[in-house]
């Protein structure tokens, strides 16, 4: 494979602008999969992606393309997610590309992640082709989007390609644009092997499958490779290309993106950002790798079953292979035993991790209320970082508490200015300034406490702007705050897994909402259950789950006995998702309900 017949590019965009659908059209034309096996958004292969209709994982697919110049090209496409929580996926995908297609929905126009992803691509020095998609929509306004491309993005709108991914329009032009305008990769096939790991996943039959981009040299089955970060060596069993299915190749050379299977037994040997080289002929220095993902919310994960920790360890390691943004360390709780303290890029990321652990690794889990990372200046001047309510020190020893703030850029049609103002004020936000973009759109800049946006902020923004608002944010540092620890007591016992760190002003409201939610979720039992919210020993909210007063089957004769017994047996099965806390059975859903508590 000659370098100048290769193109590596990502499709990037704001959420829902049609990246995965456009990928479908490109895949269809290249004919690597039979019609029978085709389905919409075929690269969204995880159940949870299909159910939610969003991309969570970047996916690579190598498309053979016979161009008008008579040559066959290998176009290596990476479909990326649009949601903010998965930006880490995008940035790693960009590291193995020379170009990017920046999609813009013809009716929505430029949105917050359009800008954010453009900046990411520019950081990687990529060649960018703007693509105006969904031109079939009656509300499509191509001229308006073109002016946004010029003025808001600073790109040449004459270079924009018009497509309808839904109707398959503009696909030929897009192929030609990719071949003509995106540069081929550079690299020396004869130099020592140097390949950058940008992802991996666990296959129950083949073990760890490493995804990488070859910078220099070549890699084949039978060779012994070395991971440069830990010097682990393995014999390569198979290399190949991603073509919906894995397609084994004799070798992969500089410029190519593909996978390797090497009988990697120790799951933790494979690290995202590491460099693969040949054991017998190593390259001099590794690739720079990636910036660590910077988690913004933290929560602990515990197995529902008391003996489930060992399984969870294995599941976490395997999931980590495929989710480089997941950060975790061992944790313990009085109520829940051993588990992990985890860092996530946002609440959606947290939900995805939970669901993947449950679905792909058959775990049954309890998560604690998410928290941001606070900075505590102690009386003796020492500074502590705390993200776990369980480790919150005695408040009298704290001199100053600080919480992380973000700068949020919110793009809206100007008629929603009032509604967005109100929302941000409610969330303790400060409006720093605003500026008009093209076409009556406003970019508003707010400074907000991160803890106020991790909960449902995006959903609320969508709803107050009837779907037109989009937002992006960056952390801008810690600021002084008034922090309290809210405890939840069940029948007088503090359940550490339900404790939350909250702003003083929010404590009452959060306590009340938590008590009410728990009351809804904890099923009535034989005995009365008192739920209390407390700050520093003072009860500030309470609710009660009343016991059953009447719960008795009227009749019980011949055939009823079996039926009743089966119900009793089933109830036991349902209990697998219950956690005993003291004398009370708390369903997993109750922990989740507190976690999702919105501060309404």
């Amino acid at each position, binding site marked *: 494979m000659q370098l100048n017949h290769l193109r590596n590019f990502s499709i990037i965009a704001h959420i829902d602008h049609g990246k995965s659908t456009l990928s479908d059209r490109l895949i269809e034309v290249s004919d690597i999969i039979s019609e029978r096996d085709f389905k919409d958004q075929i690269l969204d292969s995880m159940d949870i992606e299909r159910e939610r209709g969003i991309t969570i994982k970047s996916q690579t697919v190598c498309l053979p393309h016979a161009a008008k110049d008579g040559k066959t090209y290998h176009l290596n496409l990476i479909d990326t997610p649009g949601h903010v929580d998965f930006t880490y996926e995008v940035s790693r995908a960009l590291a193995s590309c020379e170009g990017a297609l920046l999609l813009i929905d013809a009716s929505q126009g430029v949105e917050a992640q359009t800008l954010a992803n453009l900046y990411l691509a520019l950081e990687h020095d990529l060649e960018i082709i703007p693509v105006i998609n969904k031109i079939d929509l009656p509300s499509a306004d191509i001229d308006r989007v073109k002016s946004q491309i010029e003025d808001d993005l600073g790109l040449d709108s004459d270079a924009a390609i018009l497509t309808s991914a839904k109707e398959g329009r503009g696909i030929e032009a897009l192929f030609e644009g990719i071949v003509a305008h995106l540069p081929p990769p550079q690299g020396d096939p004869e130099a020592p092997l140097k390949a950058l790991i940008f992802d991996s996943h666990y296959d129950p039959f083949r073990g760890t499958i490493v995804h990488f981009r070859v910078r220099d040299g070549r890699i084949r089955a039978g060779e012994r490779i070395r991971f440069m970060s830990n010097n682990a060596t393995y014999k390569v069993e198979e290399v190949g290309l991603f073509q919906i299915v894995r397609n084994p190749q004799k070798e992969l050379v500089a410029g190519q993106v593909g996978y390797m299977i090497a009988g990697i037994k120790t799951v933790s040997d494979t690290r995202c950002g590491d460099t693969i080289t040949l054991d017998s002929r190593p390259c001099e220095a590794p690739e720079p790798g990636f910036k660590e993902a910077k988690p913004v919310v933290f929560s602990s994960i515990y197995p529902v079953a008391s003996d489930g920790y060992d399984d969870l360890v294995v599941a976490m390691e395997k999931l980590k292979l495929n989710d480089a943004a997941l950060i975790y360390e061992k944790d313990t709780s009085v109520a829940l035993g051993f588990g992990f303290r985890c860092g996530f890029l946002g609440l959606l990321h947290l939900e995805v991790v939970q669901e993947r652990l449950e679905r792909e690794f058959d775990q049954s889990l309890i998560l604690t209320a998410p928290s941001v990372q606070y900075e505590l200046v102690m009386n003796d001047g020492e500074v502590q970082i705390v993200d776990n309510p369980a480790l919150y020190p005695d408040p009298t020893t704290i001199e100053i508490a600080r919480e992380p703030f973000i700068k949020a850029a919110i793009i809206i049609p100007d008629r929603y200015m009032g509604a967005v103002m109100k929302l941000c004020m409610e969330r303790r936000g400060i409006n720093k300034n605003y500026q008009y973009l093209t076409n009556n759109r406003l970019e508003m800049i707010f400074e907000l406490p991160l803890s106020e946006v991790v909960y449902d902020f995006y959903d609320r923004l969508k709803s107050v702007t009837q779907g037109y608002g989009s937002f992006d944010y960056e952390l801008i540092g810690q600021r002084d705050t008034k922090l309290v620890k809210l405890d939840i007591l069940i029948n007088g016992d503090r359940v550490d897994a339900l404790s939350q760190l909250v702003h003083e002003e929010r404590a009452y409201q959060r306590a009340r909402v938590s008590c009410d939610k728990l009351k809804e979720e904890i099923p009535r039992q034989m005995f009365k259950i008192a739920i209390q919210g407390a700050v520093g020993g003072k009860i500030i909210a309470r609710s009660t789950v009343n016991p*059953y007063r009447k*719960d*008795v*089957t*009227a009749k019980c004769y*011949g*055939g009823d006995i079996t039926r009743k017994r089966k119900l*009793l047996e089933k109830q036991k099965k349902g*209990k697998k998702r219950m956690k005993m806390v003291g004398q009370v059975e708390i369903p997993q859903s109750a922990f989740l309900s507190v976690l999702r508590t919105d501060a309404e």
Partner: protein
Amino acid sequence: MAPTHPTPNDPAAPGGLYLHIPFCRSKCAYCDFHSSADLQRLPDVFEALLREVRLRASESGCFDSIYLGGGTPSLLAGGDVARLLTHIRRHFPILPDAEITLEGNPDSLTPARLTAYRQAGINRLSIGVQSFHNARLRFLERRHNADQSQAAIRSARRAGFTNISLDLIYGLPGQSEQDWRRELEIALASEPEHLSCYQLTIEPGTRLALRHRRGEWQALDEAAQLRLFRLTRKHLAAAGYDAYEISNFARRTPHGGANLRSRHNQKYWNHLPYIGLGPAAHSFQPPLRSWNEMRLQPYIDCLARDQLPVAGSERLTPRQMRIETLYLALRQSRGLDRDAYARRFGERFEARFARPLAQLMDGGQLVWTPPCYQLTEKGFAVADGVVAHLVSALAEDEDLPRPADDGG
């Protein structure tokens, strides 16, 4: 007379024989029993039933109770009942003082039929009165009115029945304590030997459930249901009836008088063996339970080929045996006999259920009345919850000794 508290450990304990007559003139709104209104098929099913009696004659044990249930067994003519009982006696060892019950509905219990039943050997009658209030009878979609019930009871007495049980349903929408007390009074006026008072339950798939879903009526709230439940127990106790099971009441008799509890139903509740004949009937020969084909035609066809119409069976595991024992024993006023439990399961009840037992005693749901653990009044109202709470402490099968009456 059968021992008052037979336990399953007694190998010689006589069993019960149940015969299911799966026909009714029409389906009542609340009913999820197995019954058909296609009366034309009654003769074929009846013949098949006779065959089943013959085929199952080889099953061991003797019997001190026969129960003709349904459905509406009073759809059978007097002659048919006589024929059936004779047939049964020919094929099964029936003890001389056996309790022989027939279930009937007021609209088919005519004086002539009642006399014939009595002569055929029926000595206990269970009458589906359900309510003495015509509007409530219509709500339940019963075919008869209150006068017909009264007439049936009078005729039964005249025909010589000295052991009569009335079925009543309470907890109907809008029913106040006063309403229900008045109905109980009417029932008591006829001095029945036995009463079964069931709280109305909305069974899925019934017309009642459908009407409820459509919003045509509203169920009583929990507090009102509880008041009626308590009232029933209190009122009947005061009237001289023993609440020997959650929904069943027997008139107290002077010491030495005939025991008026349903001997047959106690087989179920004491986990004793019983044989069920007829479509959908269940049989239990610890630890084996089996049930018959419920569809009429396959039932008939099967017996026409001289094959047993068994649709399924299960062998109760040690855990299942315990669950059933708990559930059944605690529903009875006598409660769970600790010594019988120990003999049957080879373990101490207190050791197996230590934690929930302590909680339930503390919570006032259970009391210890040697040699039994009994539900309190408060406990009876939440009997299902109590059992569920105990069951939640039960280990898996591998860790439980097999019961003594589990053959191997």
